[in-house]
């Protein structure tokens, strides 16, 4: 059964090819069946393969499909590699992916380009599967760029609006900056270790640098650069909020559940490289910490519901990076999984709200919807509880695992822990704000709920997973990294453990008092001059966009404008100009007048005679 591994990515690829070849001429129902069905088949294949894998004794399985390229010592094959880490990722991609596809069959029903949408989505799933199943870093890179391409295509899906096109290009170019770092990391790795095969290169790294080295750190940092771009971490995070221009299922699948977590996967996959370098690990932790901190404040002041979720995603991935950095490897992947459940749920539920309000995304124009849209409301409530890490949800289990490991890590443990916990407080705060503005208070826009079974069923399943997904962690994920990661059972400092558990609850309480009651007058704070300034600063995501625009984008545009006609060409144009001037001068001398010719002949003769005489 395990040799069916290749089928998992093949189904979505086939779906993509069929939808491309038929050019959108198929009936919508058929398109929906192909689009969602291909991912469903892939999920079934994944289940079969996964079951076989879990019940067998092996810890990895690889399948060589064909030789990609051989140049001298450089040898890469197209081959798939399955271990527990890949299995978790495949499960998330095909499982959550299928649910989102199913939801999208309803969500996109009235939109132009139904077939094109599913073609892109299927291609995305294919690329994402290659990313996590790739045996070599080059195949991983293929998937990596492929998902980036699909992200670009889907953000700009409604391509007649130039703003969407801008957001799409921004996403592609900014992540490409990270990708360039990643590919340089591959070059360096190949030069030092001589292979791009993941397992071989990790073995090689352990052999060559048993105690770590500058080279090892450099490679790890370059790979981190790629991960930062893809996972929207500081300083390459600016593309993610704009990426919300894409249809909501896209945000759920690509910009919450799967692609943006690719960076986490990459670092987890290359674990040994990071274990060998304390500097690199510290960098991972700091990047995550800074991002989770900044993003959680930014989320607090957004008015677009999808942007709140975007910043929240950024912040949650920050937690995953943080976890990787402090050595909580299993917890990071665990949080990746639970986050995929509850964030996909939040996005899809918000999508239902948005659809019911005729594509209204501004939370200030929502309100009072909880009775009118019960299914989205309850789904979103569950998702929010998990996001805020309230007890008995999956988010609680995974986030606590991260925070407690952080508290126990040797260096800077408590400092890191306190920043992360402060951000957890903020998470609760912005979640309550989002829920309150959307579902409570007075109704500002009348909703028209159009959702059918294909849309509420995924919400139901994801709700169950958002609560119960935590149990999966104890059964499957404990063995993920063998004995290399930090085990789950911790000897807790009790105070820390209680604090970690209570801070989110405190956040909810404060949020309730702040937004739903008049106990505190929040207007007083937000309308004061410093309050306004800080609010604006947070609203624009701490001004990163502005810095990049004035330092890079605008100078480049200016340079492009001034040199449109190519300065180098002036050199040649000057040459022709000189030639032409002489040409004109000589033409003037041929005027057909005999006197003139006689005169020039005479003066020429005179000139020659003088020269001769002088010599």
């Amino acid at each position, binding site marked *: 059964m395990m040799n069916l591994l290749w089928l998992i990515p093949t189904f979505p690829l086939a779906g993509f090819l069929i939808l491309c070849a038929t050019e*959108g001429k198929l009936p919508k129902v058929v398109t929906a069946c192909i689009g969602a069905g291909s991912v469903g088949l892939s999920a079934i294949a994944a289940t079969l393969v996964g079951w076989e894998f879990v019940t067998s004794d092996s810890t990895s399985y690889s399948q060589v499909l064909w030789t990609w390229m*051989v140049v001298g010592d450089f040898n890469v094959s197209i081959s798939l590699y399955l271990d527990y880490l890949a299995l978790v990722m495949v499960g998330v991609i095909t499982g959550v992916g299928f649910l989102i596809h199913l939801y999208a069959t309803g969500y996109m029903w009235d939109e132009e380009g139904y077939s094109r949408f599913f073609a892109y989505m299927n291609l995305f799933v294919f690329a994402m599967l290659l990313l996590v199943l790739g045996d070599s870093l080059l195949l991983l890179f293929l998937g990596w760029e492929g998902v980036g391409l699909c992200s670009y295509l889907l953000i700009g899906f409604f391509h007649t*609006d*130039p703003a969407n096109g801008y957001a799409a290009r921004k996403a592609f170019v900014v992540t490409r900056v990270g990708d360039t770092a990643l*590919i340089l990391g591959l*070059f360096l790795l*190949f030069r030092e270790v001589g292979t791009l095969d993941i397992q071989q290169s990790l073995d090689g790294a352990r052999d060559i640098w048993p105690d770590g080295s500058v080279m090892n750190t450099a490679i790890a940092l370059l790979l981190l650069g790629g991960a930062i771009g893809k996972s929207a971490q500081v300083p390459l995070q600016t593309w993610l909020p704009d990426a919300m221009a894409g249809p909501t299922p896209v945000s759920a699948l690509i910009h919450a559940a799967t692609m943006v977590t690719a960076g986490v996967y990459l670092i987890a996959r290359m674990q040994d490289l990071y274990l060998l370098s304390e500097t690199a690990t510290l960098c991972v932790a700091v990047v995550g910490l800074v991002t989770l901190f900044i993003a959680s404040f930014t989320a607090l002041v957004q008015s677009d519901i999808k942007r709140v979720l975007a910043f929240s995603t950024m912040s949650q991935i920050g937690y995953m990076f943080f976890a990787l950095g402090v050595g909580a490897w299993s917890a990071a992947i665990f949080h990746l999984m639970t986050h995929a459940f509850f964030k996909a749920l939040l996005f899809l539920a918000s999508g239902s709200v948005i659809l019911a309000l005729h594509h209204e995304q501004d939370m200030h124009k929502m309100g009072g919807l909880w009775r009118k849209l019960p299914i989205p409301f309850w789904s979103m409530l569950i998702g929010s509880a998990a996001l805020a890490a309230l007890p008995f949800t999956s988010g609680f289990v995974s986030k606590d695992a991260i925070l407690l490991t952080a508290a126990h890590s040797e260096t800077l443990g408590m400092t890191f822990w306190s920043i992360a916990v402060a951000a957890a407080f903020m998470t609760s705060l912005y979640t309550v704000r989002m829920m309150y503005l959307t579902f409570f208070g007075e109704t500002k826009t009348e909703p028209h709920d159009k959702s059918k079974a294909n849309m509420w069923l995924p919400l139901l399943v994801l709700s169950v997973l958002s609560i119960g997904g935590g149990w999966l962690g104890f059964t499957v994920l404990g063995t993920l990294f063998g004995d290399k990661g930090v085990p789950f059972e911790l000897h807790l400092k009790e105070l820390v453990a209680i604090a970690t558990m209570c801070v989110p609850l405190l956040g909810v309480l404060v949020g309730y008092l702040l937004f739903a009651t008049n106990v505190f007058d929040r207007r007083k704070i937000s309308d004061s001059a410093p309050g306004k300034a800080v609010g604006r600063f947070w609203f624009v995501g701490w001004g990163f966009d502005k810095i990049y625009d004035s330092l890079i984008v605008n100078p*480049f545009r200016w340079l*492009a404008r001034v040199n449109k006609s190519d300065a180098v060409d002036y050199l040649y144009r000057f040459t022709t100009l000189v030639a032409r001037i002489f040409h004109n001068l000589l033409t003037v001398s041929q005027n057909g007048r005999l006197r003139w010719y006689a005169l020039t002949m005479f003066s020429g003769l005179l000139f020659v005679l003088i020269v001769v005489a002088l010599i």
Partner: protein
Amino acid sequence: MNVALLIGLLLTAGLVAWSSERFHKSLPNWVALVSFLIATIWIVFVWLNGPSEGGTYADQSYEWIPRFGISLTLRVDGLSLMLIGLTTLLGAVAVVSSWTETQTRQGFFQFNILWVMAGVVGVFSAFDLFLFFFFWEVMLIPMYFLIAIWGHEDKAYASMKFFLFTQISGLLMLVAIVALVWVHYDIHGIITFDYDTLLETELDSSVARLLMLGFFIAFITKLPSVPVHTWLPDAHTQAPTAGSVILAGILLKTGAYGLIRFVITLFPEASQEFWVYGMGLGVISILYGGYMAYSQSDFKRLVAYSSIAHMGFVLVGVYSFNELGIQGAIVTMIAHGFSTAALFMMAGALQERLHTREMSKMGGLWVRAPRMGAVTMFFVIASVGMPGLGNFIGEFLVLLGAFQKNVLLTVLAALGIVVAAVYGLSLMQRSFQGTPNPDVPEMKDFAFREMSVMVVLMVGLVWVGIYPQHVLGMTDAILPLLGVVP
């Protein structure tokens, strides 16, 4: 395989096409198309049959001017065969792409196309330096006519510029060839232009450096590399579609081919010493070409500048002086041939429909012609270097090879990947995406004729992208000659 026969076929077909115009207006098109297809199929068969024991697919030699040691030596090894195959295939593409564009003197038009291609096949198979130079000139003149007669509004200026650049740099090469032969005569007392014999010439390092420069300048002008690139945007923009397809798809590759076949083999030491300039010019071309591409508002000019950037990768690869870099350069040549030919064909199709190349007059065309939009998207992302498509393999191998040679230059070249994304996506945005331009209420989408060509090119790129072994395997044989592998 009989290369002389192949060249003869193309030359004769040119004459036939020219005279067939009097019978029917579209007969020349058919003559040209059929002869390119025959040639392509022929080459596929030769390829499938495999090389002879010496590793060559053809080896012919006839006396021409024995007094000066000039002979008609035609030889085809793996590299040559692949490039000749690309030539005949893109010949067919060029003919199809100009099927309805040319309305005047079709016979003479197809004659020129066929003769350019005959010249190119000669360039790729000549193993006698005089013969090589002869073919080098043969491909120049018909190309000049193609631009000067069927070009667009500024054709006189563009064709003259193209001619002068090529001619002057060609002159340098001729001087270098004659000097090389002279030096050889000085030592051995034999006048010969034979490639294999001249390969053995022992040169003073200063002489070698000078002669190498003569060849080098000729080839990087053709490639082209910054700073001798400025003929290309004009020539491309003004040329008819078939002309641009041939120019970008094939003629630029003769420059790259020359670097590999002549510069680094005839003058190995001098070239090795020169690597930093070669690679540096490549990096400058990548960055400057990409940056200039972004600056353009003319669809065709943008693609033209992107060619300069891509050819920069070839230069970087060749001057890495290792197997990875040179193989990467060769794959880039093939993949760029496919992707850029398609983009120029798209530019031609747009001009035929909209009578403009200015992107400010386009916008939102995807809505009008979704097939053209999707096809353009495919080739844009190919040229942006998406893994799974041919261009990526080439550029990746080039950079991987260059990294072994010099880290700093490789990092700069890798920045070209980001720049490529910037100009590539901006091309897409300004032409096919965005608000549909109300001045273009409708536009005819691609039909069977155009789609069939595009599909062939797409399949080609995917093929090179996921199984480049066919391309890489073809050129294994040449590597020992280059001194990069023992």
